[in-house]
């Protein structure tokens, strides 16, 4: 079972208490009534779904109830860091590189 660090509870908690809540850092357009259908579709439906480091929203649903953001590697499933909602995207270059090394080691073993 994964342990996920909740930035509001200040500790690692079992993944069963959490729910994934989609891609993070998607800003709702401030002029939403005026944008085109196409722009709305891009805001509302289109997601990057990258392979590798992703920024995601998670909710500590069966815990403190808060939404927060997480940086996760979608290849290794490893959480690189978590941070409170509203905080800026962390600089995760170092963590990502470290994880990349671990990942390539894993692939080499296959």
């Amino acid at each position, binding site marked *: *079972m994964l342990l996920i660090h909740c930035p*509001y*509870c*200040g*500790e690692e*908690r*079992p993944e*069963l*208490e959490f729910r994934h809540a989609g891609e993070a850092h998607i800003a709702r357009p401030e002029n939403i009534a005026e944008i085109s259908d196409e722009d709305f579709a891009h805001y509302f439906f289109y997601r990057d779904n990258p392979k590798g480091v992703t920024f995601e929203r998670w909710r500590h649903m*069966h*815990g*403190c*109830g*808060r939404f927060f953001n997480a940086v996760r590697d979608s290849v290794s499933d490893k959480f690189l860091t978590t941070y409170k909602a509203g905080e800026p995207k962390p600089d995760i270059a170092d963590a990502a590189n470290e994880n990349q090394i671990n990942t390539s080691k894993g692939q080499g073993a296959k």
Partner: protein
Amino acid sequence: MAEAQIARELPLAGRAAGGASVSITPAEPAMRVSLRAPQESIAAVSKGLGIDLPTRPKQSAVAGARSVLWLGPDEWLVIEEGDRDPMADLARATALHSAVDVSHRNTAILVTGTQVADVLNAGCPQDLSLEAFPVGACSRTVMGKIEVVLFRTAEDAFRVECWRSFSDYAFEFLRDAARGL
């Protein structure tokens, strides 16, 4: 108009389970409030309630028959086992807050005994060691397929708050877990 007389029944009345190292019993009826309040209101709401709202994760505060459990940064569960209505006390606090009487949404199970953590850990993945979950600690979490609120009232005693309609599942889950000790 005549006052309606409503008989209140504990959903788990009369049940008992456990063995030599753990005992599982339904808790007495209690009043409960789901309380939400922003940072700015905490002082005024605490004053109304007669207890300082705990502000650290997993922290609780107890005064007499009343307990306040931290559930989230702006959310608490108030449990009143005496006869002072917490809703009436909260009504006197004029600072912005939301208080919903959930006395009959929840019921509680008392689990006590030397192996209490082992029984709960049969369905709850949290670390319930005394280091991670000391006396007075509380947390919303999961147990088996349902959500519960755990409150450690002594080294060997937990109060398990669950929703009334899930209480049969919760009680039988604990009974099964105790059987496996």
